[in-house]
């Protein structure tokens, strides 16, 4: 039975975990403070009460251990969903993620698969202190063997998380912290829906230029398009949703339709996912491009302290400036 409910992204994620746990007894949730507390962002709220301590439990404070134990549990028939409390606190687990989570299937020629999800509350915009606002997607996206996704809406959060949990591949699930409280009407069928992993979506049609964004930058891109519209410029917005696998088809079709593109992402630009988008779209669409693809990203600096984060984060103004820069006179 399908119901519609107005949910925040955080609530949608919580609902996805509950529905997945109810549907499949092999789904287990663990990490730091995910039990009685329900996680510092309450994404796991109520799960221990509903499913018991064996299904949702607090662990010792050690991220490499959390991910490593999840690897073992996945090897032995479980579907672990683990939480890293904040982006930068996943770094202690980096070796486990890169050397094992990403490689186990390949290492064993498919004999051992690791159906596990690493949830990472990520990126900035919430006034968090140092180490609480890193955009770490490039580290994961550069590592073959991981799926890397980032929802931008409550509906996608629900669908992507259900799909990630059901996936035979490990998924790094990036939850834009600043969107946890954003609300939307969500359709809940209790079942995983059509695949969103690997599929970008055009969030807004437009003809003059294409904005390519994901996760926390999607609302920024949409707002920029809104403002541009008022100024008489029609911007298309593509939401990647899935960084790996990357949806070349949708993205390239969009860019070819406008001939101009700006990538918007919070992470520092150097050697990043936004570099990749610019490079691969240019490779594929060079002769359709009237101008080079511009990137509006975080600067190549450590994430700023709360009082200065607004300077670092892509905003409407910077996006529109980049759009202006797309050498209109050339076309």
């Amino acid at each position, binding site marked *: 039975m399908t119901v519609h409910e107005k949910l925040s992204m955080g609530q949608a994620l919580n609902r996805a975990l509950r529905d997945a746990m109810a549907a499949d007894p092999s789904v287990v949730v663990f990490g730091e*403070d995910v039990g009685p507390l329900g996680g510092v962002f309450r994404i796991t709220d109520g799960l221990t009460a509903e499913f018991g301590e064996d299904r949702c439990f607090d*662990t010792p404070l050690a991220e490499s251990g959390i991910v490593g134990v999840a690897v073992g549990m996945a090897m032995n028939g479980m579907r672990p969903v683990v939480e890293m409390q904040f982006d930068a606190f996943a770094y*202690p687990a980096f070796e486990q993620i890169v050397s094992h989570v990403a490689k186990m299937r390949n290492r064993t020629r498919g004999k051992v698969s690791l159906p596990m999800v690493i949830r990472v509350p990520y990126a900035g915009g919430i006034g968090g202190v140092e180490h609480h606002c890193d955009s770490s997607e490039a580290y994961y996206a550069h590592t073959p063997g991981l799926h890397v996704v980032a929802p931008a809406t409550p509906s996608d959060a629900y669908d992507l998380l259900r799909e990630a949990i059901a996936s035979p591949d490990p998924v790094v699930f990036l939850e834009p912290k600043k969107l946890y409280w954003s609300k939307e009407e969500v359709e809940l069928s209790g079942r995983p829906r059509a695949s969103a992993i690997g599929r970008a979506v055009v969030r807004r049609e437009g003809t003059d230029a294409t904005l390519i964004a994901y996760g926390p930058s999607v609302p920024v891109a949409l707002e920029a398009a809104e403002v541009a519209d008022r100024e008489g410029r029609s911007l298309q917005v593509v939401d990647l949703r899935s960084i790996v696998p990357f949806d070349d088809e949708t993205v390239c079709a969009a860019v070819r339709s406008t001939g101009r593109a700006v990538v918007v992402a919070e992470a520092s630009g150097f050697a990043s996912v936004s570099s990749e988008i610019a490079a691969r779209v240019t490779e594929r669409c060079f002769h359709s491009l009237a101008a080079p693809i511009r990137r509006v990203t975080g*600067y190549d600096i450590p994430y700023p*302290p709360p009082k200065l984060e607004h300077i670092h984060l892509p905003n409407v103004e910077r996006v529109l400036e980049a759009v202006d820069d797309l050498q209109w006179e050339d076309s």
Partner: protein
Amino acid sequence: MTLIGVDGRAVRDALPDDAALMRALQGLITARRLNEQAYALVRQGRLAVYPSSHGQEACQVAAAQVLDDGDWLFPTYRDTAAIAERGVDPVEALSLLKGDWHCGYDPYEHKVAPHTTPLATQLPHAVGVAHAARLKGEPTVVMALCGDGGTSEGDFHEALNFAAVLKAPVVFFLQNNEYAISVPLSRQTAAPSLAHKGIGYGIKGERVDGNDVAAVLAVLKDAVDRARAGEGPQLVEAHTYRMQAHTNADDATRYRTDDEVAAWVDRDPIVRLEKHLRDRDLLTDSLLSEMREAAEKKAASMRDGINRDIAPNPSDLFAYVYATPTTQLQEQGAQA
């Protein structure tokens, strides 16, 4: 180990001398006042967040007071009171939590490392500072703070092992306040105590009543002395309790009862030492109000400093990433 019981009576000999106890009381009163002031500033929206050491002041004060000038302190996010006791201006110490800059003080001025947030990562740094000092022939001891939760991290293990093998003069001081956010110690470790964690590295471990400042001072002093004498790293576990929520953003009622918290009110480190000093006629009402005034002054200056609210400089974002900004950062800074 306990030296002064909850009733204020000395349970053993070998108390720190009277001056040390009076100094400790001043430290406790100031630390408590700073904790309260910081909490108030959070409520007023002047600080983004504050992980309070309310209840743990005996550990905070002792950790700073046992050090010589040439020693180093390595604090966590919860140890602002210890940082202040070491001499750092509280306003500078709160920069991180106010959101102005990551570290607001010069770590070299008082030999206090930046507040460290990623758990246990400061511990290998502490070992490195200590080892470098040893190589240079300097008598430095490093006091490295860590919580009960932090002991589960790999870096805790690696730091203790390096320290033991290098015989580095570090005192690893664990404030076991029974919780890591919501996770109680029983889910953190199955060890008989955190002090037992030294054994696997060949490091001597001690336990101490963390709400008895006399005992904490004595045990830490002894540990510092031994480290300085070349006996290698030391491990001290203080059993204490976090009286407030993890930070203002936390809801402690989700994982502990009021009764549990109430039981610790009786073990308050300040009440205990006050009683003791009064019983021994070392503390008078007028001395106490002098102490409170001194604390009040510090709190007021901290409040004023925080309220002054000078906007941080955006160009700082680009100035310190490298010794010399790259051309790219110059461009980005100009654009921002």
